[in-house]
């Protein structure tokens, strides 16, 4: 280690500082990107009949969200606006604005059989598989 220290070489502490700064910026950018890209966060459940998708959307109501289904893609989009009378902000962590979330579904669903409901800020979407796609039990003959 000591041998690598050569005072004749032009060691610039600022170069190293800048490198560190760059690394830090990249790190924080990647963290910020991840959190902003996925709104709303969703969970998917499945059974033989279809799919259940739940999304955490506190503060949203039915008329602020639009759903569309095509083949095996579900699109959730909407907008919330700030409706407060703030004169001074102390903390701002909740989300406002427009969003679009596209979710690839694991199988085809019937676009005519979509049942969506909001309960306490959680959106629940139930999607049915087309009748001909549902898994069938095949009896084993003796």
């Amino acid at each position, binding site marked *: 280690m000591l041998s690598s220290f050569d005072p004749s070489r032009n060691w610039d502490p600022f170069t190293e500082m800048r490198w560190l700064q760059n690394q830090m910026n990249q790190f924080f950018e990647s963290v910020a990107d991840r959190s902003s890209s*996925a709104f709303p*966060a*969703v*969970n*998917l*459940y*499945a*059974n033989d009949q279809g799919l*259940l998708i739940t999304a*955490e*959307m*506190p*503060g*949203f*109501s039915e008329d602020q969200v639009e759903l569309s289904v095509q083949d095996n893609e579900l699109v959730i989009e909407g907008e919330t606006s700030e409706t*407060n*009378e*703030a*004169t*001074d*902000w*102390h*903390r*701002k*962590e*909740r*989300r406002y604005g427009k969003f679009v979330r596209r979710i690839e579904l*694991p199988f085809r669903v019937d676009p005519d059989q979509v049942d969506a409901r*909001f*309960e*306490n*800020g*959680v959106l629940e979407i139930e999607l049915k598989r087309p009748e001909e796609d549902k898994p069938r039990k095949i009896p084993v003959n003796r």
Partner: protein
Amino acid sequence: MSADLVRQDREENVTRLDDHRSVPVYRPDTDIYDDGDRVIIEADLPGCSVDDIDITLENGVLTIKSQQPRQSRSGWRPIYTEYGEGRFERSFALTDDIDQDKIDASVRNGVLRLELHRSESTKPRRISISAK
């Protein structure tokens, strides 16, 4: 000998998962702002209704806690998970100018709204300057 260590009563010896499973605790995203007369706190508690939320005030610290919302997902198997479900908890230290007897709370669409009124004596007063 070792068999004696195991209780023979079958019912007593069953480990109930529901009782022992630790529930994750999340910190709700919160907006705090001033509207002149009041301080407004709005906290995201998705899935929670009035009955799930507990608000306590102790020694100038306001704490909001929620029970884990009961959801019936029986018959469904999870295939993809982006968010966890659990309890919410967060505390806020109140400043001296907040009237601790005058806090209004309401819940709408999974958002808890607290309105903290300023005590009369600490409200900013306009002092007029008289022209000479």
